[in-house]
């Protein structure tokens, strides 16, 4: 599949991709959810994945994050071919996911959620290092400008946007390579969406790759460096955000513009 827009300009040419997908295919029984998908993700760039409902966007995120193994194709993480047995392996390799229905334990404080599953302990009794967790969380929340009353606040006392902020901050803390965001603002109002977008944009500076799924083209155009379009499991094309417009992307999503010949 030709990707004219991918002919990389200056910056990305010399940096090797963080994640490289080659000919990824996924079948569920007889149904092909993803066919022949190829994409490179580079550190410090935000790539948007768009397409109609059922196009296969979430499936692709699940493949990358180790939830589903691909039926065919190769995945390379920093140049090394990888196959994740499950999501925790992908996480150990520095890939974090933020879902729309965020995975936070809502009766626990922010800092406990931040370290859930990887809590630091100290001393021979392996006592939870609460102070360490609180300090690290405070630092992160300040750096990312996530506005919450306190890192000791219980999740369910936070607004939707604050929770999504916490989820993204957690992903940022643990991700060393890649953050996948599956409709991170779908449940949020205007102001909260703006705040989360700001947060996502600030991830560029942290030198990790970001792949974001969104149904809002406005958001996609505000945030992304490149846009990748899926239709019914097929990769229609990849465009540089600066070299395209909404009409072209809508055409690609709906099928008015057919995929380029290979």
């Amino acid at each position: 599949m030709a990707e004219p827009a991918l002919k990389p300009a200056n910056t990305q040419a010399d940096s090797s991709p963080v994640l490289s997908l080659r000919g990824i295919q996924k079948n569920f029984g007889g149904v092909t959810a993803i066919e022949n998908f190829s994409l490179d993700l580079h550190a410090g760039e935000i790539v948007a994945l768009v397409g109609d409902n059922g196009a296969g966007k979430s499936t692709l995120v699940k493949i990358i994050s180790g939830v589903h193994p691909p039926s065919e194709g190769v995945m390379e993480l920093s140049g090394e071919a990888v196959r994740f047995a499950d999501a925790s392996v992908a996480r150990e390799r520095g890939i974090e996911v933020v879902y729309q229905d965020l995975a936070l334990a809502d009766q626990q404080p922010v800092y406990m959620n931040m370290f859930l599953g990887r809590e630091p302990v100290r001393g021979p009794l392996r006592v939870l290092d609460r102070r360490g967790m609180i300090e690290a969380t405070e630092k992160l929340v300040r750096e990312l400008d996530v506005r919450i009353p306190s890192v000791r606040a219980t999740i369910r006392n936070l607004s939707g946007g604050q929770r999504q902020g916490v989820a993204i901050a957690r992903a940022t803390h643990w991700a060393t390579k890649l953050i996948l965001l599956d409709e991170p603002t779908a449940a949020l109002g205007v102001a909260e969406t703006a705040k989360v977008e700001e947060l996502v944009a600030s991830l560029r500076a942290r030198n990790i790759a970001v792949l974001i799924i969104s149904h809002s083209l406005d958001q996609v155009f505000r945030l992304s460096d490149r846009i990748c379009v899926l239709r019914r499991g097929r990769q229609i094309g990849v465009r540089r955000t600066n070299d395209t417009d909404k009409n072209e992307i809508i055409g690609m999503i709906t099928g008015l513009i057919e995929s380029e010949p290979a």
Partner: protein
Amino acid sequence: MTVLIQPFDKPASRWRGLAGSPQIASLVILAIVLVGFSLARPAFLSPLNISNMMAFLPELGIIALGMTLLLTAGEFDLSVGATFALGPVIVMLLAQNGVVDIGTALAIGLLVCIAIGAINGLIVTKIGISSFLVTLSMLMIVRGVALYITQGFPLKSWDQPGVFVTLLADSFELGPWRLYTSLWWFIALTALAAYILNFSKLGNWISAIGSNRNAAVARGVPADAVKIGLFIVTSVLAGLAGMISAFRISAASPVAGTGYELEVIAMVVVGGTALTGGRGTILGTIVGAVMLRAIRNGIVLVGVPGLAFNIFVGAIILVMLILHAFIQKRSFRR
């Protein structure tokens, strides 16, 4: 881009923070209950009465510790009362028929408890049936086994002194009070449970699993293994409490512990642990255990007729739960 400014919470005063925590609220109520009974009936504080309460308290309290952890993880166990009976019944049957020595008999009894908990846990987590239904069935099975293998008759308990009797049910004088070794067990197990729930990784996992299981699993927490482990712990503690009780009264009855499952759950939720999971407190459970024992004992002392007794116990539990609900709601708004 708009910047969203969230109002920062005013720092709650220390007093409000304390009064707002369910444990402290229970502690205050407990103090009121204790003072109330003492004023109404000075005999409530007599050494004999206190010794009496202290003999019962650890037996239910030990089960309540396991139940607290299990409830915090979002499950519960209705089979503890039956396990409380079956554990010692198996030990006595084996030991008295001379099949094995008492030590081996105790070990086998505990192994049976482990098996009960493991079956509960496996069915709940791997087949996905609610713990209410699974452990209700298990209650009937376990109670049925205890009745069948004893033919319904209580067994005379092990009455020869020995290291295990000393360990489980010895009594000693402390000042004016007569206390049992079970109190040490209770104190040690309380410390262990409090460490696990408040200071260990496992405790954070237990709370997170009860709060949002999928969220915990998504972060790599082995939720099913933790739950199965907690079912096993709860069964073992129920069996251990049964053995302590059987040694203390020198009899193992197949109907011992009838209704204990609800009594124990009441102790735990009165203490402030959420029945729906995610929030548990060991201190609260201790308060709840002492409170329910004190109420049962005090109500008889102040002369409530025996048959009206449960009306009061039920009403007091209800009042406690309503109180916790209010505290919860208020902390929500904060």
